[in-house]
C-alpha cells in the first residue's frame, strides 16, 4: 500500500494552523507550530537474525514568543487537547527564559519558488516484503563473495514522510520526501585477524543494491593482509569520497553557520572574500539538488530552500542562515533551518542552522587516476573513526583510518593496520592538490574523492 504523502501534508498543515491559534489564545504574541509524520520501515540483519520493524513517529512542536521571550514545547501524537497542552507549556517555558535581544521575530512568509526533491513512486510503494527480499540478497551476496566473511550487520530502510509549518505571521507551508537506503558492515577473518568493511547507498530513486554486499565484503577482505606503517610522517593522503564526507561536513557545517560566526565559534569569521581553500575548491550548499537527500521545498521554519555559494575557487562567499541568525544582521534566511533530533522526530526540537546538501565541484580524474599521481602517500578508503571528537571550531582533528593503503609511485603497495591521521582541517583545505570526478551521493551532500597534502599519518 503506497503512502499518500499529499493527503498527510494537508492534514498536518491544518494541525499546525490549529497549534498557532491555540498558542495565541494562551497569551503568545507570536506562535509557530511544526508537525511531522514519517512512515519508516526498517529491516535489520545481524548475520542470520532479522529484526524487522515499522513505525510512524509523528507529533507537534510549538514555538511561542511571550513578552519578547521565546518558549518551546512538544509532544508526540496529535489531538486537540494535547495541542492545547503543548501551547500552554510553551508559554510557561517562555516566561522563564531571559529576553534574548538578538531575537527579532519569527520568519515572515518568503515568496521564492522552490521544490521538493525527486519522489519516486516505486519508493512510495516499496513493500515490507520487498525490503526483506533486498536484505536477504544483501546478506547472501556478502557471504558468498568470500568465505572469510564471518559476520555482518546491515539492513534496508524505507523512509516516507512529510512536515508542515505555520506561524502567526501568515506563513504556512509543507514539504515531503521519500528515500530508500541499504547498507552492510561486515567482518572478514583470517588466522584470528579481524578486518571490517562497509558500503551503503541511500537514494530518492529506487536503486540497485546488488553491489552493496560484495563491495563491503571486498573492502574487508582486502584489509586482511594489512601491515603496520611503523612510522609517523607528513605525506599526501588520497581520501575516497565516502571516507572524507562526514569529516568534511562536520567542519564546514560549523564554519559556515552564521550563528557560529556571530558568536565567534567559526573559523571562517571575518573571512568572507578571503581565500580559505585551494583554488580548485568550489562548494555550494544546494537545498534544491533534485537527487539530494536533504532537499526540501522549505526548511524547518517554512523558508524556501535554495542554493548558496559557500566557497568559489577557494574564496569564501557566504554563510548559511536561519531566520534567527539572518534577522540579527537584517539579512534574508538562506533556508538552512533544521530541527536536529534522533528517532526521526524533528517536532521535538527547535530550529538551528545546518547545511542541506554540501556539493563539491568535481575535478576530472577518477579515483584510480588520483592515486596514480601520488609518488608516495596514503590512500584512505571506507570510513574513518573519531570524526565526532574532532574540533570543528579550530579544525584540529585526529581520526583513525581502519582501511588505508600505502601508495608508492602511483601504485597501491599494501593495506595498512589502523592509521592515525591528524592535522588541521582548515589548513588542509588550502592544501587540496586534486579533486576527483567520482561524485558520491551521501546524506551530507555530494562529494568527490580528494587529495590533501600536509596531514600527519602514524601507525
Amino acid at each position, binding site marked *: 500500500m503506497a503512502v499518500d504523502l499529499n493527503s498527510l501534508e494537508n492534514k498536518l498543515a491544518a494541525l499546525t494552523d490549529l497549534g498557532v491559534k491555540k498558542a495565541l489564545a494562551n497569551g503568545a504574541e507570536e506562535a509557530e507550530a511544526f508537525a511531522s509524520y514519517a512512515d519508516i520501515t526498517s529491516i535489520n540483519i545481524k548475520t542470520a537474525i532479522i529484526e524487522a520493524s515499522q513505525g510512524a513517529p509523528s507529533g507537534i512542536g510549538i514555538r511561542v514568543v511571550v513578552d519578547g521571550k521565546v518558549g518551546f514545547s512538544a*509532544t508526540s501524537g496529535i489531538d486537540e487537547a494535547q495541542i492545547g497542552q503543548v501551547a500552554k507549556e510553551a508559554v510557561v517555558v517562555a516566561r522563564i527564559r531571559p529576553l534574548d535581544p538578538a531575537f527579532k521575530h519569527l520568519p515572515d512568509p518568503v515568496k521564492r519558488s522552490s521544490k521538493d526533491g525527486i519522489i519516486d513512486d516505486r519508493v512510495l510503494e516499496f513493500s515490507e516484503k520487498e525490503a526483506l527480499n533486498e536484505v536477504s540478497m544483501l546478506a547472501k551476496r556478502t557471504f558468498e563473495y568470500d568465505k572469510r566473511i564471518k*559476520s555482518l550487520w546491515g539492513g534496508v530502510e524505507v523512509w516516507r514522510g512529510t512536515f508542515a509549518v505555520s506561524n502567526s505571521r501568515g506563513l504556512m507551508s509543507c514539504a515531503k520526501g521519500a528515500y530508500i537506503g541499504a547498507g552492510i558492515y561486515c567482518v572478514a577473518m583470517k588466522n584470528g585477524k579481524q578486518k571490517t568493511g562497509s558500503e551503503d547507498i541511500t537514494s530518492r530513486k529506487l536503486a540497485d543494491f546488488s553491489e552493496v554486499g560484495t563491495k563491503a565484503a571486498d573492502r574487508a577482505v582486502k584489509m586482511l593482509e594489512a601491515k603496520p606503517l611503523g612510522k609517523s610522517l607528513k605525506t599526501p593522503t588520497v581520501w575516497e569520497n565516502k571516507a572524507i564526507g562526514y569529516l568534511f561536513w562536520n567542519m564546514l557545517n560549523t564554519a559556515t553557520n552564521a550563528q557560529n560566526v556571530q558568536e565567534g565559534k567559526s573559523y571562517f569569521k571575518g573571512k568572507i572574500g578571503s581565500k580559505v581553500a585551494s583554488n580548485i575548491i568550489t562548494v555550494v550548499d544546494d537545498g534544491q539538488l533534485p537527487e539530494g537527500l536533504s532537499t526540501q521545498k522549505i526548511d524547518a521554519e517554512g523558508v524556501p530552500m535554495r542554493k548558496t555559494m559557500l566557497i568559489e575557487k577557494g574564496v569564501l562567499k557566504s554563510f548559511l542562515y536561519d531566520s534567527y541568525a539572518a534577522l540579527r544582521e537584517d539579512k534574508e534566511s538562506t533556508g538552512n533551518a533544521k530541527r536536529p533530533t534522533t528517532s526521526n522526530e524533528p517536532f521535538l526540537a527547535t530550529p538551528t542552522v545546518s547545511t542541506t546538501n554540501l556539493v563539491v565541484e568535481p575535478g576530472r580524474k577518477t579515483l584510480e587516476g588520483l592515486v596514480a599521481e601520488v609518488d608516495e602517500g596514503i590512500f584512505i578508503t571506507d570510513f574513518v573513526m573519531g570524526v565526532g571528537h574532532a574540533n570543528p571550531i579550530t579544525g584540529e582533528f585526529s581520526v583513525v583510518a581502519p582501511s588505508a593503503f600505502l601508495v608508492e609511485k602511483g601504485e597501491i603497495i599494501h593495506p595498512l593496520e589502523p592509521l592515525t591521521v591528524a592535522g588541521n582541517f582548515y589548513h588542509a583545505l588550502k592544501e587540496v592538490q586534486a579533486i576527483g570526478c567520482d561524485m558520491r551521493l551521501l546524506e551530507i551532500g555530494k562529494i568527490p574523492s580528494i587529495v590533501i597534502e600536509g596531514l600527519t599519518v602514524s601507525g
Partner: protein
Amino acid sequence: MWNTKIPKRGSNMFELLQYGVKKGEELGAEFVEVRFDDLSIREILVENKVVKDVKTLRRVGIGLHTYYGGATGYSSTVDLSKKAIAGAAARSVNIAKASSAMVKVKVEPGELTASESKGQKLDVKKHPRDFPLQFKKDMVLRAVESSEEHGKNISSTTGKYGEIYGEKFFFNSAGTEISWSPMLSHLTVFVVSKKADLLVIGADGFAGSFGLEAFDVSEHSPEALGENAGKWAAEKLEAKPAPPGKHRALCENRLVGVLAHESFGHLTEADFVVSGMSPLTGKLGNQLGSEKATIIDEGTPDPKKYNGFWIPFDDQGVKTNKVVILDQGKLASYLHSRETATLMKGSSTGNARAVNYNFPPIVRMRNTYFASGDLSLEEAIELLDTGIYAIRTAGGQANADGTFMFKALRGYYVERGEIKHPLREVTLTGSILTFLQNVEGATRELIIQSSYFGGCGKGGQFPLPCGLGGPHLLVRDVQFGGEK
C-alpha cells in the same frame, strides 16, 4: 488521522494492550508483546548564567512485538484508538510472517510464565513532576553561582538539569501484566578556566532514580556540585600534564564504571555475540581477567544505597536479573533478550530495552559495575605506591575490538603512597582485556550513578538511561597519554 486521547490508566490501559495482543493472535502471531510508554522530558540549559534552552517534551505511544514462525515483527503507533492498534498489530504480524520465510535461525519468545506486577514505583518525597520549571532553573543557577564563587579565572560556565519520568505498561500473550514508573533526575555543572592559552575543565554532577530531595543533602546540593566544579577547574590551572607511559593506576568509581559499560559490557551483549561480531564470542567460562575483577549488570541496585537507573522489568516483560558477567575474571554470562536467549539456549536476563515506543527492544545494559573488594581507600593509595590516581571521565571512545581511549576528568600524581600534585590531560588507553588482567585490587565502597545527559546509544536508539560504577580499582601497567 490521529486519535491520541490518552485512555485512563490502570485497568483501561491493560484492556487496550490486551486488545492489541488479541488482534495479533487472531492474525496468526504465536506470541505477542504490547507495551505502552508515556515519558515526559524536561531539560534546562544555562550558559554563563543565561537560560539558553528549555525543553519540555512528551512521548506517548504503543509498540507491538509479534513472533511468527521463528521470526519477529515490530510496529508502533502514536494513535491510541483500537482501530490504530489493530492496524499496528496487522503490520507487525505481516512483517514477522514475511521474515519467517527467510530466517535461517529461528528465534522464540522463550519462557512464558505469566506474572503480574502493577503500579511499581519508587518511594520519593519530591517527585520532579510536582515541581515547576522555575524551581529547577533556580537549582541550576544556584550550582552555577557557587561554581563562580569557588572557581578561578573562569572563562565560561554551563549548568544543566534534565529529568525523565512517566509510566510504562506491558501485556503479553502469556497474560503478564506489568506497569511501573521510571524516573531519573540529573543536575550537572561544567566550568572552563583559562590561564594564558591553557583551557581546563572542572565538572561535577549528580544523577539517579530519585526525587529532588536528593539535592537537599548537603553533599549533593547544587552549591556543593558547583563548588567542586569551580574548585577542580581552578586546581587544574596549576596542574602538570600526566607523565606519558605505563603507570600503576588507581581508577575511581565512575571511571571504572565507564570502562565496565563501554569497553566490556557491550562485548557481552548477546546480539553482538550470536552474530559473531564480539571478540568474546565462544569465550564463556574463559579466564579473561584477574580474580579481583568482577563485573555485574543489574536492573534494580538498592535505590536507598545507590543512584543507578531503576529498571524492575525490561521491555519484553522480563524481570531484570542481577547478572554476573565477569566472575572473578571468568566470563560468566552474556546479556540476553528473549530472542538471543533462545538462539544461545539460555534464558533471558531481562536486558531487552527500547529507548521509546518507536523502537523494538534490543539487548542493552542496565546498571553495569565492577564489584567492590576489601581495601580501604587509604590502603589502595598505599598499595598504589607511585602512580596515577585517575578520577571520573570527560569522554572517550571504546571500539568493538576491546581497545579504548578515555580521558579522566582529573587526576593526581601519587608518590610512595602520598598524593603529590594534581594532573591534567589524564588519558588512559589500552585494551579492556589487558586492563582486566591487570586489576590488582578493589576498594570496599561501591558507587553507582546514572546519567540523563549522555545515555547509551546503539542501533539508532539514543539516549537510553543506564547506570554504571564500581569501587576504586588498583590496576598495574595502564598506558597514559596515548592521545596525540
